[in-house]
């Protein structure tokens, strides 16, 4: 058959071993799929969501309860978003644990880090758009963390919040970031990231003389596998969205009672746990940024994996980088679990 546009987005052939599910975990592909779902469900939500403090939570309730399949659209958007963050992290871990970040792929690795940051920021801005009692303290502490940055903190706060405290200006700015600013940046980076994958030689493999298995699969077979994966992912996402609703609380009011537990969104629980230790700027800005910088520098500061070992899990030659990534992963998971324990 003649290859169409979608076929042409893929290389003519790719190595068969590295095309397997147990190698890639389909993480990158799932991330693209989830992003597409987010775009479509996000547009549908825009037809009902009203970005003012009085109407935000009420418009979400209208969408969820009174619009046929409105709750489904919202739940699809919510679960796709949470799984996008998780899948991006899985993809990042896969890249580190298979040593696929070495030159010429180091810049693409940075593009991927940028996408990880954008995914988290999109998740957070979307979370704030609920403007209900559940997000209230995350918004207050998150914006106050920005204010704690020396020299530029107050200016950054003004740009983020649009005033001296979170209010209508904040909501509309977060809305602008969420549906346009961050989404546009993410779209550009996705395109660039996928372009770089092809420009850098496709999926990381040893050079042909060192390759054990020379078999390859065609772009047609690859697309077929991707469609199959999309069907299965769509089914799972649909069933989850039908039975597990996205969280929603009553709108923010000054007189609402302070709840026993004010929890950060799940992807920031590790930061909330660290903030219990003391100085907000250090634990809330410096340490998370340091972690981000450290993992961004993995391709630059650690020994690179040997070419013969590319294309497989846990090569011996970049064990140090794997250990560092594993350590950071376990630390973040531990902090997250500690944050979930009931408060003393």
């Amino acid at each position: 058959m003649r290859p169409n546009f979608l076929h042409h987005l893929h290389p003519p052939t790719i190595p068969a071993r590295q095309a397997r599910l147990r190698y890639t975990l389909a993480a990158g592909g799932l991330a693209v799929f989830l992003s597409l779902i987010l775009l479509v469900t996000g547009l549908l939500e825009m037809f009902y969501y009203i970005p003012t403090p009085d109407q935000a939570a009420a418009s979400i309730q209208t969408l969820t309860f009174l619009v046929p399949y409105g709750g489904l659209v919202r739940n699809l958007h919510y679960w796709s978003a949470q799984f996008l963050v998780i899948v991006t992290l899985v993809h990042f871990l896969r890249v580190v644990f298979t040593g696929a970040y070495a030159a010429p792929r180091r810049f693409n690795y940075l593009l991927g880090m940028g996408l990880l940051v954008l995914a988290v920021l999109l998740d957070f801005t979307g979370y704030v758009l609920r403007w209900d009692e559940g997000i209230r303290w995350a918004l207050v502490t998150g914006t106050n963390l920005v204010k704690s940055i020396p020299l530029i903190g107050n200016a950054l706060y003004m740009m983020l919040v649009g005033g001296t405290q979170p209010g209508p200006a904040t909501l509309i700015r977060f809305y602008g970031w969420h549906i346009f600013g961050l989404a546009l940046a993410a779209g550009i980076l996705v395109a660039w990231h996928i372009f770089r994958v092809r420009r850098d030689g496709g999926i990381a493999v040893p050079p042909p003389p060192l390759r054990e298995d020379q078999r390859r699969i065609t772009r047609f077979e690859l697309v077929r596998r991707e469609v199959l994966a999309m069907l299965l992912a769509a089914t799972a996402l649909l069933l989850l969205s039908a039975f597990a609703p996205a969280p929603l609380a009553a709108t923010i009011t000054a007189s609402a009672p302070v709840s026993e537990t004010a929890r950060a969104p799940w992807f920031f629980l590790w930061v909330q746990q660290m903030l219990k230790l003391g100085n907000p700027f250090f634990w809330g800005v410096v340490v998370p940024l340091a972690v981000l910088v450290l993992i961004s520098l993995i391709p630059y500061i650690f020994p690179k994996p040997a070419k013969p070992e590319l294309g497989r899990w846990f090569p011996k030659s970049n064990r140090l980088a794997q250990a560092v990534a594993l350590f950071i992963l376990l630390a973040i998971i531990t902090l997250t679990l500690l944050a979930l324990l009931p408060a003393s």
Partner: protein
Amino acid sequence: MSNRTLSRRDFLKLASAAILALSGLLGLEGLFRFLTTQTEPLPPTEFDLGPASNYPPGSRTLLADIPALLLHTQSGFSAISLVCTHLGCTVESKPEGFACPCHGSRFDLQGNVTRGPAEKSLHSLRTGITSDGKLHVYTN
């Protein structure tokens, strides 16, 4: 062409680049002013709580809008800000003092820190009674 002197071509390239850089900086300054302007009115710093007689001696009144706790003791009116000094969450009033649900800071009944991560005590807010008997609390 010697290496010391600049060719006309290179000079023009340099000049264009400098002018573009300058335009970029001016644009950034404009962008900065665009982004940091405040369209909302400033939040109020003075709150009228109505007649002072509404708060009899021995009363502890939660003022959710400020937020603050108003006390009327033998020595008169006092108001403690309920904004946690760590990262700004509203603290809960408890029998033994105040507790912040966000990162676990604890304060005693006077607002002093008994357990971190907060380092400063809760602010005391100024109160005053106007000539017609209305109680006011000030956050500045």
